[in-house]
Each structure stands twice: as structure tokens, then as C-alpha cells.
């Protein structure tokens, strides 16, 4: 697998660090990790940087994760970039909503590094 530039979007800096650690434990070769505290910040980050993978929370201030994913279609640097949601919102309705907005994967908090691996590796390989 090629080196990956990842964007991690979560209003908790602790959770962003945990997600990064889980990606490394999952065997993802991270070339660069960019962070944002909400959807609006993430869109701003993507104006100046291209990434290969986005991991995104749903419940965030300013702009939530679902709205962020909806707006990604208009961002050149996000074309074809897979998004995996990582959130406490675990209902089927939320999963369906996230997928319909364009997310390729969905991980419920709390989670393990193994679960991150199960959901992220197929997405990076284009199998999901």
C-alpha cells in the first residue's frame, strides 16, 4: 500500500491522536496527517492540501460531519477521496444517512485498532 495522506476531523484533539495511532497500528503507512476540529476547518484544510483518506466525526460544532461530507463534492482536492465516519452516533439511520451523503465506511465509538483496520484498509484498496 502506498503512503497515505490522511485528514482526521474531530472536535476532540485526544480522539484525533487516538485515530492516528489506530491507523498506524492498522499498518497504514502515513506520509502526512492533517487535523481539523470541525467540518468548516476541514474544508479550509482541503483548499490547500490534497489527501488520500478522510476520517470524520459526526457531532461537531460549527459544521457537523454529515454536512462536511455533503460539501466535499465541490472540493477539487477531495475528488474520489474516501471518507470513513467515526462517531458515537451508532443507529442504522445515521449509517444510512452517512453512506447516502457519500461516506465509504462507518466506525462506531468506542472502537479498537482492529476495527479501524477492518474498515479503512478495504476503503483504501478501493474495495468498499
Amino acid at each position, binding site marked *: 500500500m502506498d503512503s497515505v495522506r490522511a485528514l482526521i476531523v474531530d472536535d476532540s*484533539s*485526544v480522539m484525533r491522536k487516538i485515530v492516528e*495511532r489506530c491507523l498506524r497500528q492498522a499498518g497504514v503507512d502515513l506520509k502526512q496527517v492533517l487535523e481539523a476540529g470541525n467540518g468548516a476547518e476541514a474544508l479550509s484544510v482541503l483548499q490547500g492540501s490534497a489527501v488520500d483518506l478522510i476520517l470524520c466525526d459526526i457531532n461537531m460544532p460549527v459544521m457537523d460531519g454529515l454536512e462536511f461530507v455533503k460539501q466535499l463534492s465541490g472540493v477539487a482536492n477531495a475528488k474520489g477521496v474516501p471518507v470513513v465516519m467515526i462517531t458515537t452516533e451508532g443507529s442504522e439511520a445515521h449509517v444510512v444517512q452517512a453512506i447516502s451523503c457519500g461516506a465509504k465506511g462507518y466506525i462506531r465509538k468506542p472502537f479498537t485498532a482492529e476495527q479501524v483496520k477492518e474498515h479503512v484498509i478495504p476503503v483504501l484498496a478501493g474495495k468498499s
Partner: protein
Amino acid sequence: MKSMTDLLAPNGSHENWIPLMQVAAREVFELMLGCKLTVPETVNDTALEVTSMVGLAGQLCGVLSVRCDEKTATLMTSKMLGVSVDTVGPEAQDALGEICNMVAGNFKNKIAGLGDGCMLSPPTVITGTDYDLHSLADSPGLELRLLFEGMPLNITLQIHS
């Protein structure tokens, strides 16, 4: 998974939710911190000066809070991040807020039909013990007293029907 109606006791109390709260908390600590919570043999009313709260709104309205002391919050953070306790700084509040958020989310996801109809607020963290909390809760709160690495950890759910 049981429905919200199934889990209501005949007297309208929510005591049947306590085991679900306990499972929700245990899962968060085992998966995210690699630690098992235990139940204390005796209950001591020690001052717990760090409080994290998450509001619930929708079909279930209320406040779920997690309380511990600063030393416990620091140890939790070090376990979450996989770093030494000596390196933990102000992110301990962020970590406790995220733990509270995950316990609340995991709890509501265990009650059928509640996941869609109950939203969570971002967590709020209070440090100190000299405060009064006035919530709109109109039923007796549910309280779980647990131990994290031998140190007290209280989880309460106050419900506004």
C-alpha cells in the same frame, strides 16, 4: 437490544437502565483504555473534582455525567493516548469529555429506537467541587459507582421525562 418501553419499570422509574449504563461504561473503558472497571465493595463519598457532562435531547432528555478526581482523569488520559502520566497536560479535560460522550452514545445505542431519536450535546467539563447543578430532571437520577484502577468513578444519569 430492548426497547425504551420494555426497559421502563412498572413504577415509571428507569432502574432497569443501570445495567445498560454499566455495560456501556465497561465497553468504553475496555476498548478505548484497555482497562476493566470494577464495582467497589464499599462506597466512600470522596470529593471528585472533575465532572464531565453530556446532554441528551429528544425522546430521552437528561444529562449523563462522569465524575472522578484529577489523578484519575490524568491516568485515564495516559491510558487513552498510550503515554506516560507525566506527559499528560490540559488534554485530560478533553479526554474525560470524550469518555463521557462515548458512554452516553454507547448507552443510548443499546436502547432500540433511541439512537435515532436522541441527540447528544458536545461535552462540558467542570473542575472543582464548589458548585450546584440545577437540571430540569424530574425523576431520581441513576447512579453507578465504579472503580477505575482502584480509584472512584461515578456515572450518573438524570432524566427529564
